[in-house]
């Protein structure tokens, strides 16, 4: 049976790490010294977000016209820095007149939701409510 360990509880660090993890995917885990998770989460979110933007997916803004647009905005804002740099990464903007752009919209939203999951895990780790095995403990 795997031995489980918890890190010291530090709510302030947990909140800072969560905010950092939202802004830059994986940064929250890096602040908590979960290096492998930080790299994997950054790569996963970055790949999905960048491919979604390069496929000219739609990026929802905060002035949503209906509930679905608001849900899209909530998912997209989870991308953190990729949301704010969307216009720079893909200056041509969205084109959802083809299925291709529609897939890009889904990939970008998936990246945002995935990053929000990672932010929740950062909070769990920082607040000491998530037990982790030896493989995930810093320095092991």
């Amino acid at each position, binding site marked *: 049976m795997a031995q489980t360990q918890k890190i010291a509880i530090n709510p302030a660090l947990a909140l800072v790490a969560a905010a950092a993890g939202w802004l830059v995917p994986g940064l929250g885990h890096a602040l908590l010294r979960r290096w492998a998770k930080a790299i994997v989460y950054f790569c*996963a979110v970055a790949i999905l977000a960048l491919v979604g933007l390069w496929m000219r997916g739609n990026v929802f803004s905060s002035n949503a016209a209906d509930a679905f647009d608001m849900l899209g905005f909530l998912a997209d804002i989870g991308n953190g820095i990729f949301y704010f740099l969307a216009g720079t990464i893909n200056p041509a903007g969205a084109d959802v007149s083809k299925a291709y752009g529609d897939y890009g919209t889904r990939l970008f939203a998936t990246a945002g939701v995935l990053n929000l999951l990672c932010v929740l895990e950062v909070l769990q780790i920082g607040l000491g409510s998530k037990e982790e095995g030896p*493989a995930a403990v810093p320095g092991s």
Partner: protein
Amino acid sequence: MILNHFQTMVIFALAVSAAFAFLSKNEMNERIRYAVWAFLAFLVVALGLGWLMYPFSH
């Protein structure tokens, strides 16, 4: 960037299965097994559903 639909699905499956594996498993062996299983499940289910819907496209 021009990717076909299958390549897009593979990228999605790779990224999501890797992230899910690290979110849900602690041991590296478990993570690898889970990531491979989830990746294959994504592909098999998507291809299966695609073939199931194929008759309706004609």
